[in-house]
């Protein structure tokens, strides 16, 4: 009897339909097509409806004259001649200003409070706890109203400004700082300051390398202070004090001259900073507690003081736990800055999705641009924090 040799059937060759790989691709493509179709039909439907209702569409409004004013602006903007596009930049810069300063301040305050909660000083730890629990558990909008109405508004009117040291004036129109003016030779001071800054950073880098190589420590803090503060001050005296100040003074209804910091800005900054700092404090506390106790005990056993233990042993290890949630807090702060609209701070949402949207009536375009901007800001922040996270991550050998 002869047997007919039967070849084993290759599953893929028999039918493409049963190839798991190909099936996978087909499903992926089908999903992609459905999603693409949904987006396309939603967009074309919107465009068609706008056309049918004769609502202006497109981005032509960008170059149209705006015709309104904004009080706080980092770039020149006025009702005469500025466009909606420029209004967008005014708003965006104001958002970035409050968000970036807020992130820096919230980080410092948050780290301080987070460490303070773990302090062996009972009162300090309890104060930090009360701060975190109170701030964290109240809605941010309410806190903004509080800072704006309850704290800033009872300030006196410009005629009865509170005089602070160094010619600084405080009233219900804001904080007025003397405006420094550079006389001839004044730019040398700025140059010295910048050089000092570069020098300090270089020195710190060099000192660290030296310490890693030889174990020898240098007084980085004092030398940096000397380079950045003392040296420019000497140049200032040497050049015959070439910086003069324009002091704010009363003229008509308001103060004239000086740098005006608006109460809306201060309220928003204080609100965002204190609120986010409470969350950052908890993140920091969690990060520190995640470092095993043995680490600090070992550091103490080696003779490191508590400050040095925290700085050199605990925090570097805690950072790995801290950075990812810290990033979310930074993103939250940036997004929360849009609550500015409630207290009249001209941020992106207030100026652009507020006034510009209303004057042009082009809700779809304006809101789409605004969403794209917040998305971009958030993604860029995440990107930088992820790079930083990679640098801090445990290097496995």
């Amino acid at each position, binding site marked *: 009897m002869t047997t007919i040799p039967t070849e084993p059937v290759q599953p893929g060759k028999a039918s493409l339909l049963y190839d798991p790989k190909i099936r996978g691709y087909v*499903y992926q493509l*089908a999903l992609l097509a*459905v999603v693409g*179709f*949904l987006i396309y*039909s*939603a967009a*074309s*439907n919107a465009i*068609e*409806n*706008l056309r*049918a*209702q*004769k*609502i*202006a569409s497109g981005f032509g409004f960008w170059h149209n004259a705006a*015709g*309104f*004013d*904004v*009080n706080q602006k980092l770039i020149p903007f*006025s*009702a*005469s001649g500025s466009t909606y596009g420029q209004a967008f930049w005014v708003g965006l810069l104001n958002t970035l200003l409050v968000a970036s300063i807020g992130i820096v301040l919230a980080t410092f305050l948050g780290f301080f409070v987070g460490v303070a909660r773990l302090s062996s000083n009972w009162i300090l730890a309890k104060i930090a706890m009360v701060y975190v629990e109170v701030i964290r558990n109240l809605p941010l909008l309410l806190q903004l109203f509080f800072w704006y*109405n309850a704290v800033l*508004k*009872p300030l006196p*009117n410009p005629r009865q400004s509170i005089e602070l040291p160094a010619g600084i004036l405080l009233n*219900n*129109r804001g904080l007025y700082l003397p405006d420094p003016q550079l006389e001839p030779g004044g730019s040398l001071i700025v140059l010295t300051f910048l050089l000092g800054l570069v020098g300090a950073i270089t020195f710190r880098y060099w000192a660290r390398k030296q310490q890693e190589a030889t174990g020898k420590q240098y007084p980085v803090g004092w030398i940096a202070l000397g380079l950045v503060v003392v040296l420019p001050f000497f140049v200032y005296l040497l050049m015959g004090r070439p910086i003069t100040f324009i002091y704010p003074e009363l*003229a*008509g*209804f*308001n103060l*004239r001259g000086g740098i005006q910091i608006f*109460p*809306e800005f201060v309220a928003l900054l204080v609100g965002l900073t204190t609120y986010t700092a409470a969350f950052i404090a908890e993140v920091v506390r969690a990060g520190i507690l995640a470092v095993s106790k043995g680490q600090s005990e070992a550091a103490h056993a080696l003779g490191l003081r508590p400050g040095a233990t925290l700085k050199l042993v605990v925090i570097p290890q805690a950072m790995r736990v801290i950075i990812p949630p810290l990033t979310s807090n930074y993103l939250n702060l940036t997004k929360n800055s849009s609550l500015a*609209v*409630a*207290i*009249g701070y*001209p941020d992106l949402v*207030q100026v652009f999705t*507020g*006034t510009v*949207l*209303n*004057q*042009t*009536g082009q*809700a779809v375009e304006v809101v789409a641009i605004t969403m794209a901007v917040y998305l971009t800001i958030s993604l860029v922040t995440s990107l930088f924090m992820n790079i930083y996270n990679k640098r801090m991550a445990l290097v496995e050998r």
Partner: protein
Amino acid sequence: MNRFVSAALAVAATAAFAGGAQAQTGLLAQVKSRGQLICGVGPGLAGFGIPDAQGNWSGLDVDLCRAISAAVFNDPAKVKFIPLSSKDRFTALQSGEVDLLSRNTTWTMSRDTSLGLNFAGVNYYDGQGFMVRKKLGIDSALKLAGASVCTQQGTTTELNLADFFRANKLKYEVVAFASADETIKAYESGRCDAFTTDASGLYAERLKLGVPTDHIVLPEIISKEPLGPVVRHGDDTWLDIVKWTHFAMLNAEELGVTKTNLDEMLKSENPEIKRLLGTEGKFGEAVGLSNDWVVRIVKHVGNYGESFERNVGANSLLKIARGQNALWTKGGLQYAPPIR
């Protein structure tokens, strides 16, 4: 998988074809089948649109909504009021959230042409003014150089303000808030030297201040602010209804038809009154209403003059004189085309 695809297609189809259905049946039919008119009003401006402690809305703008409800349903209460801030009002109307907007909205060319909206008339002729504290001791808006001015954003006010100071080469600082309440609160707390909005609004907002008599309205009126109801493009019948409801109230006043003498007027032999009240001709049917539509309006709401005096005029807290809003026969600007 199949079920998923069909569900997704259904969603896509809805997204793609939604809106088509809306255009086919008119808004009047929709309102009738819904049994309710949805009216976008101001979030609380005394005299024009404000809810009382029980949530009952009243005001000149509110009365227009009630008049339309009366004309359609023979009942002024079949209205759902949606309070809208200046900032949100047009989007709410464009997206179909409200059937009409009746809330101190200035008729401008750009709003009429590029927002996909139609203005249905002017129910209040207004102009923008300034309010300041008495103790500042100024008597003219031209003396506001260097002042901080509080205003509400998303309004023509914001633009007129910039125009006024630019035209007169004066410096100023603008502080813009999203809501009227925040704006007046900021002014009261001293954040601003002056508060600006339409003159009618100034009188209405002044009532909210702690001591209203400490504040004065400056004499300058810096703009034309014809305020009126607004509807979406594309439904001419609905535009006619809103427009003619307002005209009917004006014509009723002009012909002396009031809430109290309505029954006598129904027996009138005056052909104009007969056409107005539907005892002659079929004018109501032409816009899809019943022929006694004006009778319903006057019975439930009153004529324009009655509504004016009750809400903003002599019988109200505001005590605004008729002025420009008097009938054309009395030297004002309110003029309605005839019903014939």
